[in-house]
């Protein structure tokens, strides 16, 4: 196997290098914004990949946690006078607690049943965000206070580029750390054979719950970041379509591959921007490209690339 794609130091160093060089190649501020969007989406996808790729449990309502994080960043400062960074932390805690409470009953379900249950949960959260308009501004959404850290107001596209990239690097590092630890091994074991995992003493219910909570916290932080970056939130952030986008990033990039989630986010964020030349056929083309890539790269982009590299040697 390719050593570069497997060493966590190398992966994070390579990612940092890319992050550092990219802005010099950008002709305009618009690209900075797209790149920041990629980093934030990748952050959420990495978390979801811990649940889907490592533990092998599906969540079709994951944007709910993204939405909770986003609205925490909006509501915290607006209604409770919290600093934005504290609202981000509170949002992450709420998401973790909610994931724990919801996960306990629904993670007993398997396969399609779990998919439907998580889907229902996602719809429910989006519904609450839409209807509780006194707090959330309803379907029109609400504006979000700018982030201020130590008196420094994070406003420019450059500032957001670096901040979101910093989060991505930390998020990548943490997710990579999980491999080859007792928790990481147990997650993989659970994915390959649940019954064998139980027989060696792994408490699979607790383990699934942990993965669900980790994924929820990642999504929530990503949501808060996006909300503060855009200065605006609406219920679509928690909607079903966004959930599906997150799942697509994970699957397209490669289940279980941290780098894959980043690649998946690049594809799903950049491609629609690039496909605007097709105008009304944009979504059609996007769908077509995703179908074709899944047919020819069933394992996802990064695992596929890894295999090709291994074969070439």
């Amino acid at each position: 196997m390719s050593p570069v794609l497997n060493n966590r130091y190398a992966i994070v160093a390579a990612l940092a290098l890319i992050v550092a060089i990219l802005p010099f190649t950008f002709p305009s501020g618009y690209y900075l914004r797209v790149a920041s969007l990629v980093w934030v989406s990748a952050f959420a996808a990495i978390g979801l990949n811990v649940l889907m790729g490592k533990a092998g449990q599906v969540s079709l309502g994951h944007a709910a946690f993204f939405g909770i994080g986003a609205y925490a960043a909006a509501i915290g400062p607006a209604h409770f006078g919290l600093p934005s960074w504290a609202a981000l932390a509170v949002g992450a805690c709420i998401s973790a607690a909610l994931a724990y409470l919801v996960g306990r009953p629904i993670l007993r379900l398997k396969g399609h049943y779990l998919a439907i249950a998580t889907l229902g949960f996602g719809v429910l959260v989006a519904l609450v965000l839409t209807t509780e308009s006194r707090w959330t501004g309803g379907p029109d959404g609400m504006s979000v206070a700018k982030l201020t850290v130590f008196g420094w107001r994070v406003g420019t596209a450059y500032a957001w580029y670096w901040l979101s990239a910093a989060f991505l690097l930390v998020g990548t590092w943490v997710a990579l750390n999980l491999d080859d630890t007792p928790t990481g091994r147990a997650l993989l074991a659970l994915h390959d054979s649940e019954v064998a995992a139980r027989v060696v003493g792994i408490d699979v219910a607790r383990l699934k719950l942990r993965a669900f909570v980790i994924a929820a916290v990642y999504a929530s932080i990503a949501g808060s970041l996006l909300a503060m970056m855009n200065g605006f939130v609406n219920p679509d952030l928690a909607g079903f379509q966004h959930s599906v986008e997150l799942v697509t990033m994970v699957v397209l990039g490669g289940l279980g591959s941290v780098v894959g989630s980043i690649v998946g986010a690049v594809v799903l964020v950049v491609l629609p921007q690039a496909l605007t030349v097709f105008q009304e056929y944009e979504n059609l083309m996007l769908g077509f490209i995703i179908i074709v890539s899944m047919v020819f790269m069933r394992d996802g982009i990064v695992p596929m690339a890894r295999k090709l590299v291994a074969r070439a040697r």
Partner: protein
Amino acid sequence: MLVVKDIGISFGALKAIDGVSFSANAGQILTVIGPNGAGKTTLFNVISGVYVASRGSVELCGEDVTSFAPEALAARGMSRTFQNLQIFQRMTVAQNVMVGRHLKERSNLFADLLRLPSVGRQNRETRDAALQLLEEVGLRDKADVLAGNLSYGGCKRLEIARALATGPRVLLLDEPAAGCNAVETEEIDRLICRVAEKGIAVVLVEHDMKLVMKISHRILVLDRGRFLAEGTPAEVRENPGVHQAYLGNRGAKEVQGA
């Protein structure tokens, strides 16, 4: 060590296991045999908590553990292997065995996420322990191969190593030699004896009669979910009821006539 009393499980009207009792002692090999469909694997699934017993009790080292979940049984010293292989295919051979040490490891989610130095230290200890077990089952040189790439016999031995890694007092082996060639069977045969010599109570389901007769201390015969006979290999070999269960009336007569 392991005492099973009057255990039974029904699937609808079918009594898959009906009032079977036996006990397994430390350092001894008890083999469960019986014709196809006798309920051997079902018996294992009931004892190891994969299925929930309809009646009867299972006692492990004096503690009533009837219908305990597999992970709870693992914590109390029961481990097993599977007839249809259940190895972790996407992990290396060494990692498979390292997972077996799960209960022996201190695991803290935050330490793992941040990969604190203690995690690395423990990883090395766990890996050393795993390598030692792999040495024992003859897979030391395959340690860093993906488990999915092992031969069939290799997988069988890997499952035993993983089960041993939990530090069991009772080990249930479900057809460890099935599908193995003569050489592989011989190796597994020796391995099982070594395991028993360590003082582990081994309960074995096996079809290979040569292997069964050679290594078992006692044999339990099941037929259609019921107890048929129990005894030493010699006793069971002479038992007409066992011949009849395996070969039918005519076959049994021929064996006794021979």
